[in-house]
């Protein structure tokens, strides 16, 4: 399948030029040099083609051959993706390790999906059925609990002429035959899909169900909807990766695609070693059984880093097409943008801001627009939610990647270095962050918890912004100068900050808060505030409120009350009633 189509004339890092452009197409996958390194055609001019190479080019010579494949850069889709760990161009890292040892060598060629493993296929169509693209032909249990729906390629349609009976098949075995016009086509469980082309769907649905992450600052204060897009920008050390890991662990999606894009090797290893031992609270199965990992660490070839984002999103869309909710984490999109910049620089393109190519914004938009809650071609509904980390140089949010990202997301979780320095985690600044999904998901909360979440949430935000104003005054004149009513606000916001917003990802009880626990905690803090305020207004000194033993109890509730023991909050509320009641009685007269 691969014939020589050209010869190399120029090499500089990951960019190679070659003669022979007549024989290849734009964005075609090619093999470069005698080692058959993977590359992609990114420019054609006269007889010259420009190729970005996904592997290290050291040692390559001019005059070396280029082989064409006739295919665009694609991923393999089918059962066996779950629990895999791939590099940026979907090569399975465990197989590379088996074949080459601990270090990644060049020229590795492996099937992304095992051709040997057999899956138990159960057909869902019969001979004579007319099927269109995306139709579910049958199902396979990909893990013990996950049903993989084998779909017809979205571009195909026709009439079923043969379907395999229930049985064990590999992804290469025929499972159906289809009459398309005049020709008959054999269908397997394996599909190839070009990574740079979004998989089609029927139409978009409104995104009005929150993606529950178990993180209070996110779910309660800045929710993202299923099918939405969120950005987490922050300087180094502010906890982007920890937040991404927490979402990957606890988000209520059926599939998680985690892209480690130009980040640390040890972090990917942490995920690999930890996820098989963590249990998904919803299915009771290891978290790894819903996870696909793409690891293109910072020292792996830079062009493959550029591709990794597309590889990940295409896999996410494939599971969405089956009717599942998929959450995709990209850590970090800045490294992906830098890969674009590096390749653009080697091509000597005219730079726009800070050396980034002018098409940066366009590429970011294309990526984030692949998120969505949709009606699929096969009449199921599924979603892809994107959570993209951004690493602004120097923590300066005015840089191009952060600014352009803000245009294409609707939920912004701004990480703050000073909060991180005080070990307030997650270090998401509540005054700089926003979510445009608040109104959209309000109805869901009401239905789920029976409580008016949005009003309570807005009340808490009001107090927090009041605190920010008051703390300006405190910085100038000290807290004693404030009236008791205002100091009551500071007491309550301390409870909100330490009891609600701070969450310890490493502590078993605190790591995940159910929606019910979150709303109950919010309710309790606001209740404390209303009661306290009434007493203070009658003239009780603020330190009496500050010294109430229940204050400490409320702050510690996040790690003392588990998701199953919510009745304990009733006890805490009783303590508030009792302790405040005494004060109330004293100052009533």
């Amino acid at each position: 399948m691969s014939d020589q189509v050209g010869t190399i004339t120029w090499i500089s890092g990951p960019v190679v030029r070659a003669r022979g452009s007549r024989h290849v197409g734009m964005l075609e996958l090619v093999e470069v040099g005698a080692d058959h390194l993977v590359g992609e055609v990114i420019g054609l001019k006269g007889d010259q083609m420009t190729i970005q190479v996904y592997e290290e080019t050291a040692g390559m010579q001019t005059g070396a051959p280029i082989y064409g494949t006739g295919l665009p850069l694609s991923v393999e889709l089918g059962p066996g993706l779950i629990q895999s760990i791939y590099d940026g161009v979907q090569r399975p890292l465990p197989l590379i390790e088996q074949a080459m040892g601990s270090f990644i060598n060049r020229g590795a060629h492996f099937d992304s999906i095992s051709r040997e493993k057999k899956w138990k296929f159960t057909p869902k169509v019969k001979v004579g059925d007319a099927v269109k693209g995306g139709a579910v032909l049958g199902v396979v249990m990909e893990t013990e609990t996950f049903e993989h729906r084998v779909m017809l390629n979205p571009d195909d349609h026709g009439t079923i002429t043969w379907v395999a009976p229930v049985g064990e098949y590999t992804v290469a075995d025929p499972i159906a035959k289809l009459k398309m016009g005049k020709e008959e086509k054999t269908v397997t469980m394996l599909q190839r899909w070009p990574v740079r082309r979004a998989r089609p769907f029927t139409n978009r649905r409104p995104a009005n169900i929150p993606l529950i992450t178990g993180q209070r600052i996110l779910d309660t204060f800045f929710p993202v909807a299923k099918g939405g897009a969120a950005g987490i920008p922050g300087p180094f050390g502010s906890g982007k990766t920890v937040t991404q890991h927490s979402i990957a662990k606890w988000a209520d999606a059926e599939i998680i695609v985690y892209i480690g894009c130009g980040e640390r090797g040890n972090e990917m290893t942490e995920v690999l070693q930890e996820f098989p031992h963590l249990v998904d609270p919803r299915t009771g199965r290891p978290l790894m059984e819903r996870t696909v990992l793409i690891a293109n660490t910072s020292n792996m070839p830079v062009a493959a880093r550029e591709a990794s984002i597309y590889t990940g999103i295409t896999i996410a869309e494939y599971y969405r097409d089956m009717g599942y909710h998929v959450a995709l984490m990209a850590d970090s999109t800045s490294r992906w943008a830098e890969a674009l910049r590096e390749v653009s620089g080697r091509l000597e393109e005219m730079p726009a801001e800070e050396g980034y190519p002018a098409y940066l914004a366009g590429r970011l938009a294309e990526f984030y627009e692949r998120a969505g809650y949709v009606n699929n071609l096969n009449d199921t509904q599924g979603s892809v939610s994107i959570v993209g980390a951004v690493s602004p140089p120097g923590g300066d949010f005015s840089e191009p990647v952060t600014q352009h990202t803000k245009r294409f997301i609707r939920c912004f979780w701004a990480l703050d270095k000073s909060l991180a320095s005080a070990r307030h985690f997650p270090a998401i600044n509540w005054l700089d962050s926003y979510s445009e999904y608040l109104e959209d998901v309000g109805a869901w909360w009401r239905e789920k918890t029976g409580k008016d979440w949005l009003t309570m949430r807005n009340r808490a935000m009001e107090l927090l912004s009041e605190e920010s104003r008051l703390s300006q005054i405190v910085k100038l004149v000290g807290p004693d100068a404030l009236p008791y009513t205002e100091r009551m606000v500071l007491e309550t916001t301390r409870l909100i900050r330490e009891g609600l917003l701070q969450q310890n990802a490493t502590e078993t009880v605190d790591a995940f808060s159910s929606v019910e626990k979150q709303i109950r905690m919010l309710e309790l803090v606001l209740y404390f505030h209303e009661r306290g305020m009434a007493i203070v207004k009658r003239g009780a000194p603020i330190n009496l409120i500050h010294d109430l033993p229940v204050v400490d109890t409320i702050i510690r509730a996040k790690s003392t009350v588990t998701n199953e023991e919510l009745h304990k909050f009733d006890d805490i509320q009783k303590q508030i009633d009792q302790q405040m009641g005494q004060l109330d009685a004293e100052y009533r007269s």
Partner: protein
Amino acid sequence: MSEVTVQGGQEVVGVARIEGPILVVEGGTNVSYDEVVEIQDSRGQLRRGRVLEVGEGYAVIQAFAGSTGLSIDGTRVRFLGTTLHIPVAEEMLGRIFDGLGNPIDGGPEPLTDHYADINGQPINPTARIYPRDYIQTGISTIDGVNTLLRGQKLPLFSGAGMPHDQLAAQIVRQATLGKVAGAPQTEGEEFAIVFAAMGVKNDVAEYFRRSFTESGALTRVAMFLNLADDPPVERIVTPRAALTLAEYLAYEREMHVLVVLTDMTNYGEALRQISNVRGEVPSRKGYPGYLYSDLASMYERTGRIRTSKGSITQIPILTMPNDDITHPMPDLTGYITEGQIVLGRELNFAGIYPPVAVLPSLSRLMKDGIGKNRTRDDHPRWGAQLYAAYARTQDVRALASVIGEEELSDVDQKYLKFGRAFEREFVNQSFTENRTIERTLEIGWKLLSILPRKELTRVTLDEIAIYYKGDDAAN
């Protein structure tokens, strides 16, 4: 790591263009990208270089020792047909090399048939072992609140005139495999040390050499020296040569290796210089757009792999120009490394050693190397509590500078007292003081006991009952 035989390749006489350390050579055939060349000037002097770009009939070459004395006609360039390799052997410990890996201590070439590519190869993430064993450095600000693990990369961010060299020397001298608090201590000779100097003054290199000699570690140290007056372009190779040896020692000889790289800022400048001469599009402050990937290609050569008991731990030192932590060098380093130890100018003025600015410092891997069965159960929460209290101290100090200390509330007064004691007793320790982990924990609890117990919301009530010794311990 592959073995190569260096063959005499083709030779080209005369170069087409010379610009700074960059040469353009025409007429070579079958030149490989990243190939090593030997450059001979008209007087027969040899220097080495590397191919940066190849086109049809020409190659762009970077001369490591610069281009001084080279002429258009009289220069001969010989292509060696391989990428840059250095010999690696256990015998290299105890030896001193130049920035390209040639011995400069008067001794012979290392006797080995093992040559390794200085660029190394990326470790497959699936082949790594996640770091979990902590290294006791005997320094409270590191062991207590920014714990270093075997296989971690933890840089020192410093500034001109601050004692980063002393701190690095102290870490190297005292480093031993961490034990559970209370377990008997062992004197560690567990680490081999690979030291790389890029563009530092001779005094600094000498300081480290003396310090290694005094602690008796010299036989376990391999030094790669590119000093301030050595060719800047060589600096691109120095850390890679050092890491290549470290990888051999760690992954083939199963040793635990500590790598000290100083000063990465000089490395960055050398990289910028070459990028500049080549006319590449700069990103921030003139540094090339690939600075992140380039730094990562070195920092990521840290860690542990499943097939070896050894490990590589990196302590890069970098001086922040103008103490600016947002400068591209510290900034991009911080994004790649697993935390950072930041030295603070104010603490240094106050005579506190080591002047570790605790709040901006961080060890990302700390959480996985401490706590129950590793140091002590309360350690993680104790650390968070110290951080939170010291952060609050900064707010109180700001307030006190406006309204005066007398006007502060009782609680705030106690925070001030805590802050002072924290800096004098916890952060401050002598250059020779080697604190055990339980001593560090004990000092921390003593300081926390200055505060009212109600303020301690990060530690558990049980821990307060055991360790808290403050005035209101009873209630």
